[in-house]
């Protein structure tokens, strides 16, 4: 409940300041436009559109998800958070915020993508939905803990994608594979190993993040 209150505070703050939403919206529009312009009249394969989808998602996540902690550090309100809640409450609140943001971001990207790319068609929607569900959760967890780590650093903007890349790479690779399967119409049962890997990644990242956050948060 306390974490939910922190999430509500962050969400209300976001609606007033548009700190992350504007950055994400602009990035999604710009990257999709650049891809569209670079393709031109070329007809690209289904599998390539699936790959490009995750490129857009990865870089959009990099542009907006660090804000959860960075905005607190930049505004100098980190001390205030220290004084009102325990570390686990803060992490859960920030994670909830990033989860909502990632799901909204990914739903918007997929809708825009489906409208703008003719060759993007999913044969097994159920598998694509599961990949999106667990994949987005993994992106949210990883982004939140990385944001907490880099918020104390001086070169935040550069450090975030550099640190996020190796951590998100296994997730992105498995998501690319699952997207390929869902485009080709492979069944959920046949993709069980990849889905299990995805869920395991989420569990490992979530556990590690809660264990690590105490050390990051306390000086």
């Amino acid at each position, binding site marked *: *409940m*306390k974490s939910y*209150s*922190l999430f*509500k*505070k962050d969400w*209300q*703050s976001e609606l*007033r*300041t548009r700190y992350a939403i504007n950055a994400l919206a602009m990035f999604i529009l710009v990257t999709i436009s650049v891809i569209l312009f670079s393709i031109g009249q070329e007809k690209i394969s289904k599998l390539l559109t699936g790959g490009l989808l995750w490129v857009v998602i990865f870089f959009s996540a990099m542009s907006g998800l660090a804000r959860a902690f960075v905005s607190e550090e930049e*505004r*100098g*309100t980190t*001390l*205030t958070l*220290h*004084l*009102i*809640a*325990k*570390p*686990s*409450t803060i992490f859960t*609140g920030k994670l909830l915020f990033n989860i909502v943001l990632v799901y909204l971001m990914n739903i918007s990207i997929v809708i825009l993508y489906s409208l703008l790319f003719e060759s993007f068609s999913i044969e097994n929607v159920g598998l694509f939905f599961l990949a999106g569900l667990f994949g987005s959760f993994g992106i949210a967890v990883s982004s939140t803990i990385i944001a907490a780590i880099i918020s104390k650093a001086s070169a935040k903007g550069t450090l975030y994608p550099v640190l996020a890349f190796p951590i998100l790479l296994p997730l992105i690779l498995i998501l690319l594979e699952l997207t390929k399967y869902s485009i080709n119409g492979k069944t959920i049962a046949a993709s069980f190993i990849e889905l299990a890997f995805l869920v395991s990644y989420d569990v490992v990242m979530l556990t590690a993040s809660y264990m690590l956050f105490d050390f990051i948060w*306390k*000086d």
Partner: protein
Amino acid sequence: MDNYTLTLHNLTKLFGRRLIFTDINAEFKSGSIYGFAGSNGSGKSTLAKIVAGVISPTKGKVIHTLNSKIINSDNLHEYLGFVSPYLILYDEFSAEENILHFLKIRGIDADKDKIDSLFNDFNLYDRRNDLLKGYSSGMKQRIKFIFALVHNPSLLVFDEPTSNLDSKGKDTVYKIVEEEAKSKLVILASNEESDLSLCHETVFVEKFNQQEKNKK
């Protein structure tokens, strides 16, 4: 009255190689006002932050006990009220929204009468619905006292409590500090003589740096 005790045991703080203070041993009990005094850069704020659990000491321990039960550092925020010039609240919210959000995050039901009375005490009642970004520095300092007092903490740590305040604001703070100290433990970190004159006991932080220099 709750029996709140704060014990500093061999407290040492270094920033890099620079020694701020070493081997501070002290015990503070509720019902009194204690001062952390010293010139600029002597480590008053650092000591206040360590006491508040915001930063860790390099060596030594800070033990908080309430009615002889040790308070876990993760739960310290429930018992602590903190004011300082470097404490920043959310500019995009009004003063009242800030306080209500903080109470909800703490898991405390808002007591409208108490909130209104604090806004009245600090002469902010008429401006409680204004966004904080429109507040002057003195008004921002006063809202911090509401932030520190609204959840009724047993330990109050005020670092430079009267900075940015006019004489009327200072008088309000002094009145509240004396009132709160009847049942709570109050710590004032300041180099203002008028602030320190309220204190029953004062720790001169510089002394704990000087001792080490003299040894060398």
